[in-house]
């Protein structure tokens, strides 16, 4: 099978497997991590192109529903990133988020979405390099983990 015909959804499963690259959805806060990503860009740092960034005002706004939706719609992994403790633009959004994720990730792990597919980080506006490194790291780890199991109950299947 040629490269051209192996676009997602067009090829056989084997071809998809061969040409598979991780699809990672990153939910980031506007004030720190998004600014950090911006800095990585303006500093022309190279990092893996596998992450779709979704910017929100604050990690405190990231509902567990967002993560479920990302997995449902085909993400291989999800990254959540915000301001370092003490740096939240809204004082405590990241503290709330930290506790929420501490519990929610347990639930996901327990039901089969393990820690190789769920990432959390603090990246400040000044940490362009950390952002680039993080994305590379995460991409590599997800690559190791392989495609998200299509039989996982979280994943939407074709309608029959």
């Amino acid at each position, binding site marked *: 099978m040629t490269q051209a015909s192996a676009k997602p959804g067009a090829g056989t499963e084997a071809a998809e497997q061969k040409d598979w690259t991780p699809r990672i959805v990153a939910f980031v806060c506007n004030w720190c991590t998004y600014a950090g990503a911006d800095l990585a860009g303006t500093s022309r740092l190279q990092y893996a192109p596998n992450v779709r960034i979704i910017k929100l005002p604050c990690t405190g706004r990231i509902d567990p529903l967002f993560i479920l939706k990302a997995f449902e719609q085909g993400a291989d992994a999800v990254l959540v990133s915000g301001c370092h*403790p003490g740096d939240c633009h809204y004082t405590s959004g990241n503290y*709330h988020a930290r*506790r929420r994720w*501490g519990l929610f990730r347990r*639930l*996901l792990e*327990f039901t*089969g979405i393990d820690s190789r597919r769920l990432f959390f980080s603090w990246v400040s506006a000044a940490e362009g390099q950390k952002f680039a490194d993080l994305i590379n790291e995460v991409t590599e780890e997800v690559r190791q983990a392989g495609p998200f*199991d299509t039989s996982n109950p979280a*994943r939407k299947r074709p309608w029959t």
Partner: protein
Amino acid sequence: MDLEKMKQDAAALLEDGRANLVIGFRERAGECVPAFVTDADQADALTYDETCIANVAAYLRKPEVRSRRPVALVARPLVMRSLVLLKAEQQLTDDDVLVLGVGDDAYHGVLTLAETEKLLNDQYARLAPDAETLAEIERIEAMSPEERSRFWSEQFAKCTRCYACRAACPMCYCERCIVDRNVPQWISTAAREHGNYAWNMIRAFHLAGRCTECGACEAACPQGIPLMLLNSLLAREVRDAYGQTPGYDAEAQPVIGSWNTDDDEEFIR
């Protein structure tokens, strides 16, 4: 347990108007089902044993029950905790309910919400989580992610989305549940894999730090989905990671909705 005393108390409450309704249990064809007693002379039908698993605190969200306040509830310790938690979440006041306390094979008499809180802390401060459930949680945790995924695939495939779990839970009191909201539609309402997964995840998570492990949801599930595995897993994490057991302190902050500066962040890069 002094069942007779409970019946007398229930009758007296209705008689002297301290309660307009007593929700307890009655026997029906060998089963224990909720009973609604509005007249003192019906109080004799009340019964109680350990198979009375329904959490009658769930009725406190019903407008038809609220309109009959004050309501007296036959409550075991896990149900008492639900009541204290409802008070902590501003859903109840001391004037709304009275408790006919039962526990450890004893009848504790008529209690106010404040007395209930005290009784819980004095006598039921250390309620052991269900050992069988904890063991099953550990068994599943020992599985590979793929095995866990398969286990829950099979379980959630049974879900018909009847929402009996939600209805049976006293803490599910949202006027409009997230699953009933469609702008945007976060959770598919079709009884299929992804919608069932999202629904069961969100239901469990919305109860994180709020579940007293009463078991009413699992008992309510017609399809036999082991919902308590999810609830007890989160309850265990709440205990272990944040040192909290909800339902003992009507002044407590919600577990999710509060934080400590030294909360665990080992998982954060």
